[in-house]
């Protein structure tokens, strides 16, 4: 038997009157802080402070381990040792596993055992740990829904609502859970938009880690360009796509102090996942690109795409190799740019192209899986690819144009 809603509430109110007794609501430090974080006047500066603080932590933590520990370890000890100790110098096996016998830094050696290990463990692992620590604290403190309330107005302008920050923030760790979390958005339009926008414009934690280690001086420009792209194309998609953009309705949970037990448990799950899912892909990526080099495939593709690369994007044709690696891992793709001779502006452009040209394979599979629930795989992929090609040509080309206008190319 079903009750109608009014009656259901009547009965429940009656039960509650009998069994529940409310004491006086007390103001605690927690509840005061909880209110301040959603009031615009105090909440917005607080949000900037939080994000800046976390950013500083990430930078310091990753920098400490990568530059202070892993770079000397790999460059001064591991790299020279394996270059000498590995037999068969000059053979294809040596090239695939060790890479350049003359290389003096682990980014540029390009072998599976040299760059592969260095990028995975020396650069990305510390970045991942730092990033997930930050994201976990954001998750467990109950701050994310508050951030959602604060950014609602801005995201509303592009047909999304505040809760879309949850997939956005999760994507900064890894795009895969980011795409999965789009399920909590109400309409197909919103899910499609945020899925495409985040897989195109939001670099994952691993990629951010490599960028920060390799090209800290350009980091800010690249991020600004990507974020601008997010909003520009979000605005366009919102205008073009049919469908509803409902407004935000979300619970705002109380602030809690994250427990060490839960934070370390989640961190452990992520790190374990990194060892089993990510590191094999990084090594595979390095090996694959090396084999394609040896087989002449890379130079063939590079030569055929040269007009597009140099003419339209203004980047060297050799960038093809990292882009191929990027199908597997974007962090690896950025790392491989280090071995290519190019100007600072070309480096910025290349990193932007790596970010936007295609989602990594893991994200791509997740989009296919979620696409089924968001209007069908064909429609999501078709629409997604169309958007993607447009974005790559326009947003990539525009950057070249900006470079020409600034006179830096």
């Amino acid at each position, binding site marked *: 038997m079903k*009750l109608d809603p009014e009656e259901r509430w009547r*009965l429940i109110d009656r*039960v509650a009157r009998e*069994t*529940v007794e409310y004491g006086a609501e007390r103001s605690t430090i927690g509840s005061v802080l909880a209110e301040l974080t959603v009031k615009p006047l105090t909440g917005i500066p607080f949000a900037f402070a939080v994000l800046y603080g976390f950013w500083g932590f990430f930078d310091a933590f990753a920098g400490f381990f990568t530059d202070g520990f892993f770079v000397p370890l790999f460059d001064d000890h591991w790299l020279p040792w394996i270059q000498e100790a590995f037999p068969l110098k000059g053979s294809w096996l040596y090239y695939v596993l060790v890479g350049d016998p003359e290389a003096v830094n682990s980014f540029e050696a390009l072998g599976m055992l040299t760059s592969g290990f260095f990028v995975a463990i020396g650069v990305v692992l510390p970045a991942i740990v730092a990033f997930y620590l930050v994201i*976990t604290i954001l998750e467990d403190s*109950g701050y994310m829904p508050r951030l959602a309330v604060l950014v609602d107005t801005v995201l509303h302008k592009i047909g999304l609502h505040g809760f879309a920050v949850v997939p956005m923030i999760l994507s900064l760790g890894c795009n895969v859970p980011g795409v999965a979390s789009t*399920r909590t958005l109400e309409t197909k339009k919103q899910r499609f938009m945020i899925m495409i926008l985040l897989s195109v414009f939001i670099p994952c934690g691993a990629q951010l880690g490599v960028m920060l280690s390799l090209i800290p001086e350009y980091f800010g420009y690249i991020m600004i360009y990507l974020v601008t792209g997010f909003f520009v194309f979000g605005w366009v998609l919102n205008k073009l796509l049919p469908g509803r953009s409902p407004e935000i309705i979300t619970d705002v949970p109380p602030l809690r102090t994250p427990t060490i037990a839960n934070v370390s448990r*989640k961190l452990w799950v992520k790190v374990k996942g990194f060892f089993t899912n990510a590191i094999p892909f990084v090594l595979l990526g390095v090996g694959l690109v090396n084999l394609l080099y040896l087989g002449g495939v890379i130079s063939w593709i590079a030569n055929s795409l040269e007009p597009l690369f140099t003419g339209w994007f203004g980047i060297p044709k050799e960038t093809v190799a990292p882009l191929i690696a990027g199908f597997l891992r974007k962090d690896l793709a950025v790392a491989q740019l280090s071995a290519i001779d190019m100007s600072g502006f070309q480096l910025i452009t290349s990193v932007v192209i790596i970010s936007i040209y295609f989602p990594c394979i893991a994200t791509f599979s997740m989009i296919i899986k979620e696409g089924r629930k968001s209007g069908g795989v064909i429609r999501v992929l078709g629409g997604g690819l169309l958007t993607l090609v447009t974005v790559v040509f326009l947003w990539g080309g525009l950057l070249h144009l900006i470079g020409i206008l600034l006179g830096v190319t």
Partner: protein
Amino acid sequence: MAILLMGHPNVGKSAVFNRLTGANITESNYPGTTVDFTEGYTYIDGKEYKVIDVPGTFSTDPKDEAEKVALDILAEHEDPIVLVVIDSTKIERGLYLAFEIMERGYKVMIALNMWDDAEKHDLSIDVDQLEEILGVPVVPTVAISGKGISTLVENVPTASRVDIERLREKITSL
């Protein structure tokens, strides 16, 4: 036999699930953490139960994909026990969902989770009376510390269906 953990988003379903099955599912303090279901197993009195952590849902009328997953799971299982997890500080709206599920004729039991929060806010709930009125097991729990979980487990075999007509009369005559 399947036990489905259902309830509003962010009430601690995944935390209860981890406690019941020893799993490591993500618990986070925002609504919509779990968007897909996870299965685990637990043994009660030598009997194996399949426990399923379900995405949070506000009512039996789904508003997004995650809620749709939740209701599909409910529909898929034949005669499951539905463990409705309620945030004790928001007991009324939690009961609303519990009622909806009871009205559909499922075997139900209730975990009054976040009991520590309720105590902190000077909220007192007469659990025995509530149990008596509803006619299903009601157990206060604190999923993050594990308090009440063993009582919850002991009560699984007594989860029961509710005759709504009788419940209505009982409540009206209180």
